[in-house]
C-alpha cells in the first residue's frame, strides 16, 4: 500500500480522555436560543442565512422580470433595480454563502468530524451568531428607511456609493450597509478564531492534521483566509463611513457633483478598489474552499472510494488559499490602475488554475473505478463538477488580462461568477444538506422531492447562466436597468432574456419544493439511523443521533486511520470508520 497516513498508528493509546467541563444548559432559553452548543449555533446560523437568502432569491426574480420584460412591471424603476442588485449580490455572497459555509457547516461539522465535544470558546461562538443576526437585521432595515437601501452595486465603489446620484447614497441606506458589514466582520472574527483554534487544539487523539477529512481542511483554510481578508473590508467600510459622515477624503478626490463643487479633495477611489478586492478575491475562495472540501467527502462517500490523491488535495487547498491573496487586481484590469500590473496579476491568476485543475482531476478520478451510488448528494456533487468546471474555465478568459478587456463589466462576467461562485457552491450546499440532514434530525429527506429539486435546479441554473455568457460576448454591459435600442441588444437577445427569466422563475419554484421537503421530512422522513450512508468520518459514529450536547457521551473517540478507508481490500465491509482500530490491534487487546 502507498504510504498514506491511514496506516495504523500503534502509538495511539486507548480512549482515556476524561470528560471536558462543558457548560450544560439549564433552561429552554439556554438550550435553544442563547445556546453555546456549536450544533445549535450551526442551525441558527443556517436558518438565518437561508431566510435572508430567500430575500436575495426574490430580488433576483424581480431583476430578471425587469430584464426579461423591460418596463412591464412599473414598480421596478431604475432606483429599485439598483437597490435590488446591490442587496441581492451582497446577501448572496456574504450573508448567505459565507455565513452558511462557515457559521453553519463549520459549526456543525468541525467539532463532530474532529471528535471534539464543542468549539473551544463556546461563549464567543454564541456571541458570533448574535452579532451575525444583528448584522442581518441592520442590513434588512435598509429596505425600511427613507430612500431605501443603497443601490451602489455590491462592490460599493466610491465616490458613487456616497453621492446623491445613487439610490440610498446620501441617506441611511449606505450607512446601514456599512454598519452591517462592520458588525458581520466582528461577529465572524469571534466565530472564525473559534474554528481555527478548535481545529488546531481540539482534535481527538489520533486525529492528525493529515487524517482530517477534506471538509475540515476546506473550512479551516477558508476561515484562516477570512480572518486575513475581512480586515481589509472592515477598514474600507470604516474609511468610507468617515468620508460620508465626517467629511474626510480617503476615497474622495475633487468632485463636481451635479454642478456643485464638493469639499472633498485628494483621496483615491482606486484605493478603495484595492482594499475591496484584497478582501473580495479571497472571498471567492472563502466560499469555494469549503465547497471543495465538502464535495470531496460527498464524492468519496457516495462512490465508496477513497478520495484520489488526498495529500495533493490538501496541498492544493492550502496553495490556492495562499495564492488567492496575490491575485486581487484581476478584478481591476480596466480600473485605471497602472496597466503594467496586468502582467503580474494575469500570471498569478492563471497559475492558480493549475492547483484548481488538479482538484477537478482528483474528483473525477475518485469516480473512476468507484462504486457510484447515485444518491441525491452524489447527484449534486456531479452537478457541482459540471458547473464548477464551466465557471472555472470562463475564469481563464477573465483572468487573462487582455481577454478581460472586452468582457469585463459585461453579462459574461455575471454569467461567469454566478456559475462558479453561485451555482457551483450552492450545488454543494444542497448536496451537503441532503447528506447531513439525517445526522441533524435523525430522518432522511424525501428522495422523490429531492430528485425533482436536483434536476430542476441543476439544469435550470445551467440554462440560465450558460447562454448568458453569449450576451456578454455580444457586448451587453452588466448592471443595466434596461439596454433599449442598441447594437448589442438585437431582438434575438431580447428573446434570450425572456427565456432566462422564465428559467429563473422555474429554478426559484424548485427551491420552494426544497423548503417544503425540509419541513415535511422532519416528521415524515424515513428513519435514518446513526450512519445511513455507511460513512467513515467521526460525525457518523456518535453514540446517539442527533448527537446531544457534548456529542460523544462518556468517552471521546480515538482515531486510528484517515477518513477515506472505503472499499479497503480484505475488509469485511466497504468502509472502515476512522475510530475503528485495526484488526490485529483488536486481537491484541482482546488477548491481553
Amino acid at each position, binding site marked *: 500500500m502507498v504510504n498514506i497516513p491511514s496506516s495504523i498508528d500503534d502509538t495511539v493509546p486507548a480512549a482515556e480522555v476524561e470528560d471536558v467541563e462543558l457548560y450544560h444548559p439549564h433552561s429552554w432559553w439556554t438550550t435553544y436560543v442563547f445556546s453555546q452548543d456549536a450544533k445549535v449555533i450551526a442551525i441558527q446560523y443556517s436558518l438565518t442565512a437561508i431566510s435572508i437568502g430567500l430575500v436575495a432569491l426574490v430580488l433576483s426574480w424581480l431583476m430578471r422580470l425587469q430584464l426579461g420584460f423591460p418596463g412591464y412591471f412599473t414598480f421596478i424603476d431604475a432606483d429599485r433595480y439598483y437597490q435590488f442588485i446591490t442587496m441581492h449580490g451582497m446577501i448572496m455572497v456574504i450573508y448567505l454563502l459565507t455565513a452558511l459555509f462557515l457559521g453553519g457547516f463549520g459549526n456543525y461539522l468541525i467539532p463532530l468530524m474532529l471528535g471534539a465535544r464543542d468549539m473551544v470558546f463556546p461563549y464567543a461562538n454564541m456571541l458570533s451568531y448574535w452579532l451575525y443576526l444583528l448584522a442581518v437585521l441592520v442590513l434588512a432595515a435598509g429596505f425600511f428607511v427613507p430612500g431605501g437601501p443603497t443601490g451602489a452595486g455590491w462592490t460599493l465603489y466610491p465616490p458613487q456609493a456616497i453621492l446623491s446620484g445613487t439610490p440610498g447614497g446620501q441617506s441611511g441606506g449606505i450607512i446601514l450597509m456599512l454598519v452591517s458589514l462592520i458588525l458581520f466582520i466582528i461577529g465572524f472574527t469571534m466565530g472564525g478564531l473559534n474554528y481555527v483554534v478548535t481545529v488546531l487544539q481540539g482534535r481527538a487523539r489520533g486525529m492528525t492534521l493529515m487524517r482530517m477529512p477534506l471538509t475540515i481542511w476546506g473550512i479551516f483554510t477558508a476561515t484562516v483566509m477570512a480572518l486575513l481578508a475581512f480586515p481589509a473590508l472592515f477598514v474600507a467600510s470604516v474609511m468610507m463611513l468617515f468620508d460620508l459622515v465626517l467629511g474626510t477624503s480617503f476615497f474622495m478626490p475633487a468632485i463636481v457633483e451635479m454642478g456643485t463643487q464638493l469639499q472633498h479633495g485628494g483621496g483615491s*477611489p482606486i484605493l478603495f478598489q484595492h482594499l475591496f478586492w484584497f478582501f473580495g478575491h479571497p472571498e471567492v475562495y472563502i466560499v469555494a474552499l469549503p465547497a471543495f472540501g465538502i464535495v470531496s467527502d460527498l464524492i468519496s462517500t457516495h462512490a465508496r472510494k477513497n478520495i484520489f490523491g488526498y495529500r495533493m488535495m490538501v496541498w492544493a487547498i492550502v496553495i490556492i488559499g495562499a495564492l488567492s491573496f496575490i491575485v486581487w487586481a484581476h478584478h481591476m484590469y480596466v480600473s485605471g490602475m497602472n496597466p503594467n500590473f496586468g502582467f503580474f496579476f494575469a500570471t498569478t491568476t492563471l497559475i492558480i488554475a493549475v492547483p484548481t*485543475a488538479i482538484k477537478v482531476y482528483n474528483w473525477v478520478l475518485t469516480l473512476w473505478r468507484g462504486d457510484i451510488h447515485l444518491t441525491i448528494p452524489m447527484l449534486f456533487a456531479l452537478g457541482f463538477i459540471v458547473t464548477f468546471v464551466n465557471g472555472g474555465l470562463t475564469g481563464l478568459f477573465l483572468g487573462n*488580462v487582455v481577454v478581460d478587456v472586452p468582457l469585463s463589466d459585461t453579462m459574461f462576467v455575471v454569467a461567469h461568477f454566478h456559475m462558479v461562485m453561485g451555482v457551483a457552491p450552492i450545488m454543494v450546499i444542497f448536496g451537503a444538506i441532503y447528506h447531513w440532514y439525517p445526522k441533524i434530525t435523525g430522518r432522511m429527506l424525501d428522495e422523490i422531492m429531492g430528485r425533482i429539486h436536483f434536476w430542476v435546479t441543476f439544469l435550470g441554473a445551467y440554462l440560465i447562466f450558460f447562454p448568458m455568457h453569449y450576451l456578454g460576448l455580444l457586448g451587453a454591459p452588466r448592471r443595466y436597468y434596461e439596454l433599449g435600442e442598441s447594437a448589442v441588444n438585437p431582438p434575438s437577445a431580447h428573446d434570450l432574456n425572456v427565456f432566462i427569466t422564465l428559467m429563473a422563475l422555474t429554478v426559484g419554484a424548485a427551491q420552494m419544493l426544497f423548503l417544503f421537503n425540509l419541513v415535511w421530512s422532519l416528521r415524515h422522513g424515513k428513519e435514518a439511523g446513526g450512519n445511513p450512508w455507511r460513512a467513515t468520518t467521526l460525525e457518523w459514529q456518535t453514540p446517539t443521533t442527533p448527537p446531544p450536547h457534548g456529542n460523544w457521551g462518556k468517552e471521546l473517540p480515538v482515531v486510528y486511520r484517515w477518513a477515506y478507508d472505503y472499499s479497503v481490500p480484505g475488509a469485511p465491509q466497504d468502509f472502515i470508520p476512522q475510530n475503528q482500530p485495526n484488526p490485529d490491534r483488536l486481537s491484541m487487546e482482546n488477548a491481553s
Partner: protein
Amino acid sequence: MAVVLILVLVAFASVLFHLLSPWWWTPIASNWHYIDNTIIITFWITGFVFTAVVLFVAYCVFRFRHKPGNRAHYEPENRKLEFWLATVTTIGVVAMLAPGLFVWNQFVTVPSDATEVEVVGQQWLWSYRLPGANGKLGTSETRDVSTENPLGLNKNDAAGLDDIIISGGELHVPVGKPVKMLLRSIDVLHDFYVPEFRAKMDMVPGMVTYFWFTPTRTGTFEVLCAELCGVGHPQMRGTVVVDTEADYQNWLQQQQTFTQMMAGEVQTTN
C-alpha cells in the same frame, strides 16, 4: 442511465450552442482583432477541457455505477498520473497566457504617432476635447469646472486655448490613425466602452487613464458606459463616428475651440 444521457447532452448541447449561437461579438472596427484571436484560442482550449471532463464523468457514471456485488478499487494515490496531469495543465495554461500577455504588451504600448483625444465623463454625459492647431491638449483641473468651463480647462495655459471642445455631442475620429483616448471624470467612476472597438477603460475622478486603438472601418458606433455610475448609468450613451480623412477634416472645421466657447454662446449641457 438518465444521468449519463443528460451529462452527455449537457456537453454536446453546450458545444452546439456555441457553434450555432446567433449571439456573437459585433463586427470589429479596430485593430484589436488580436484580442478576438486570443479569445478564440481560449475557447478552443477551454471548450476541449470542458467536454472532456463532462464526458469522462458521464463515462464513469455509466461504467462504475453501483450494481450489487460491485466494489470500488482501492488506490489512494498515483504520483505519476498526478504529475502528468499537472504538466499538461501547465502547458495549456501557458498556451493561453503567452498570447494574452503578448497582446497585453501591445495594448499598453501606445504608438508614438497616436493622436490624443480626451473623453470627460460626468453623470450622465460624455464630452470630448481634441488638441487644436498646436497639437497639444492644455492642462485641466476638476476644481476649475464651472458652468462656463464645463471641462475645467486651465485658462492660463496657452496650450489649451485652441483645444476643441465637444460638450455632449458626437466624437469623430479619422479611420486608420491610432488614437490615444485620455479618460477623465469629474464626478464618479465611468467607463468608456465601444463594443466594436473591443477596448474599454474606467474613468476615475482625480486621475487620467487611457487606452489606444486604431479605427479600421468607417461607421457610426454607440458608446456605452460600462461602470456603474448611479441611476443614469444605462442612459449614459454617446456616439463615435469613424470618418474618412476628408469627412473628418470637414467635421473638425465646424467645432468650436475653447476660446470661442468662453467668448460666445456657451454650449452647456448640464
